């Protein structure tokens, strides 16, 4: 009995050594934004609280803004909000302003800080070219941004969602040039802005971004308009699958997919297919040439070359062979 009491007392005394925190004493952060202006770091925190209304709980987002001379100082400022400890373990998105991604050292320092501070790596990363304050004012809920990106991904294929872990893994891979999808605000409306390569001033437009995603098998469908006899038809490429290979100093790219269009008359199909294949081949070739010229690779091509030959010197001199195999949806052949 005495032993049991002693153990109980020991447990009670040790209770103060643990990181105990009631769930209602936490400030749950849904999304953060990091920006640097004139040597001052601005940290935007989108805090979500559940409010009980009748028989359901509604989520309410509130944005807090703190600053600091360094990133650590800014996070320190935001350690407690409304006397509650800031909780990042359910963080959904980190929004980084483009000003922090131009310099390699700066963004690497930022990433290593985020890795240490936030522990988990499954939150989404986005780059914003417009001031983050306006983003947070108009879209404090990460789901709005996420839904926008998903919609753009499905319709135009010019953007995708990337997690911190994925970007960090690409950054570590020497045969890969890491990038972030970029968005901007134009007259209070969200707009995709291609991708930004980390640690450089390079920026891809929407078309190049789409090709990069396509060759990385990150998009499976997208839509575009094609003019036929002064009329524009909406064409959708779906079930896209890209196969990459390297043989005899040539990158062999095979793309399979399906074409569909609700408005297009059947007799125009052949013409549209040829036009689509011609345009896509041209875009891919231009894209690869551009990357080869800069000796950068946002697709698995350089990685493939290294895997096949154990060296990447031949990257810039390699040729490209593109094979497209599309079929109209509903056709048996």
């Amino acid at each position, binding site marked *: 009995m005495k032993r049991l009491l002693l153990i109980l007392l020991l*447990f*009670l005394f*040790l*209770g103060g050594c*643990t*990181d*105990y*925190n*009631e*769930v*209602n004493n*936490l400030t*749950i952060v849904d999304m953060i934004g990091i920006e640097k202006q004139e040597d001052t770091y601005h940290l935007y925190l989108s805090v*979500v*609280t*559940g*409010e*009980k209304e009748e028989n359901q*709980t509604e*989520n309410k987002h509130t944005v807090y803004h703190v600053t600091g001379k360094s990133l650590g100082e800014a996070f320190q400022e935001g350690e407690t909000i409304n006397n509650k400890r800031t*909780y990042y*373990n*359910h963080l*959904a998105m980190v929004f980084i302003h483009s000003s922090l991604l131009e310099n390699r050292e700066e963004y690497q320092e930022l990433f290593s800080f985020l890795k240490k501070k936030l522990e*988990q790596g499954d939150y989404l990363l986005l780059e914003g070219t417009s001031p983050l304050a306006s983003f947070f004012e108009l879209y404090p809920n990460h789901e709005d941004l996420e839904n926008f990106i998903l919609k753009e991904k499905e319709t135009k294929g010019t953007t995708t969602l990337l997690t911190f872990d994925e970007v960090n893994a690409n950054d570590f891979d020497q045969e890969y040039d890491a990038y972030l999808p970029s968005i901007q605000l134009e007259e209070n409306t969200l707009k995709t802005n291609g991708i930004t390569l980390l640690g450089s001033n390079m920026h891809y437009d929407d078309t190049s971004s789409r090709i990069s995603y396509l060759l990385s098998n990150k998009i499976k469908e997208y839509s575009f308009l094609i003019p036929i006899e002064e009329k524009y038809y909406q064409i959708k490429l779906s079930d896209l699958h890209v196969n990459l290979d390297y043989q005899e100093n040539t990158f062999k790219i095979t793309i399979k997919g399906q074409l569909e269009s609700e408005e297009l008359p059947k007799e125009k199909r052949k013409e549209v297919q040829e036009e689509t294949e011609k345009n896509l081949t041209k875009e891919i070739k231009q894209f690869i040439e551009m990357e080869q010229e800069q000796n950068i690779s946002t697709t698995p091509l350089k990685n493939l070359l290294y895997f096949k030959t154990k060296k990447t010197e031949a990257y810039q001199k390699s040729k490209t062979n593109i094979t497209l195999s599309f079929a109209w949806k509903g056709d048996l052949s």
Partner: protein
Amino acid sequence: METIEKIKEAFGNASDLIVRDFHIGECTIYLVQNEVLCTSSFINEYILTRLTKLPLTKQNKEELLYNVLPDNSVKKLDDLDQMLDFICKGFALLIYEEGKAIAIEAKASLDRGIGEASNESTIRGSKDSFNENFNTNLGLIRRRIRSEHCFMETYFLGKESRVKTGILYMNNIVLKEHVDTVKEKLEKINVDGILDSGSLKKYIEEKHNFLFPTVLSTERPDRAAQALLEGKIVIIADNSPFALITPSFFVDYLHSPDDYYQRASNITFLRLIRLFAFLIAIFIPGLYIALTTHNQDMLPFDLLLNFSAQRTSVPFSALIEALFMSISFEILRESDIRKPASMGSAVSILGGLILGDAAVSAGIISPIMIIVISISAISGLAFTSQEMISTLRWLRFIMMLLAFLFGIFGIFCGLIFLLASLTTTTTLNLPYLAPITPLIKDELKDSLIKMKSSKIRKRNPLLTKNKVREREAQEK
């Protein structure tokens, strides 16, 4: 007569001790009986009616009294202590000579008849249950096991209570060492009174077992009979409507009396439900506390927000809330059991309203805590054994404390403690977790799951050497 005076003195001249002298022929016969323990009508109709007609002489009085009076339990007594003992047992004494008496059983029926089991109700199966009469209880078991191998050994326990206690076992099935162990434990009892079979439990259970019950009590004769056929020992005590079954393993507490009257698939489902209820009863409140105080990252985002919203206005920590709810539930349960029948269900309704709606409206507790504690408490009531329900209660509190202090790590520590307790508990020196550990494959067919009866042909080898329970049916 000096014997009469000594008897009166021994009973402190109690008013319920009746002494009546009869002058019959040449002899004076004294009738001594305890008015409340004996049946007056039996004494009047069968003893006195015949007694007064006997041609008693000084030579033939002993023979006539012993042979003519109509009772098969007539005993000759020649010791004062014996006489006092038999008076207390409800015998009427005919003292015919100094220091000599004939004792005739005239026990009054002070029991309530055979009723229905109140704590172990079944859908199918018999509805009779034990009552406070030893002979009735023994009779109910013997009706089900009409075998000469069903042995009974009697003890009178308690210096003052001298309660008749019987150990029953199947001589051709049980292991002798188990019987000897039980007998040894009962013989060591040196106490003033044993008023109920429940008092015997602490003498039979091993001292190092402090958490889990190892002696099952039942009010059902069919369950007791089944236990005998498995090679277990049943203890019945006078004045107690509960029989004790030992050894009892952990899996026995997951069984219900209905298990032998339904299909195997149904029984398997129900046993697994009870096992699940066992785990829920212990871990759910602790898990909730751990997830809301230490390991919030394990909760889905929406659930986390929901919990946060519900607990916003609650001034207490999760542990205090849980303890408050648990203790309130126990108070409510206790008052429900003890309340007078005239009060009806008013107390239950009041308690439910107070604990439920009013406490939430006042912001003292969160709705989710009511759900958690209710699920846990109701799961704990899935067992028929009161001792197991108490064990679950203690384990629940331990898990809550560990969760509060260390989170999920504390829950795992508690789980290890639980497993360690289960594996180190013994019942009559047998491992409590048998047949899971040590693994007894044949016995697994009727432990956590139940297979068809045709596949369960052997008994537990830990309990018996006579393993064959069922043989192949012989073709005619």
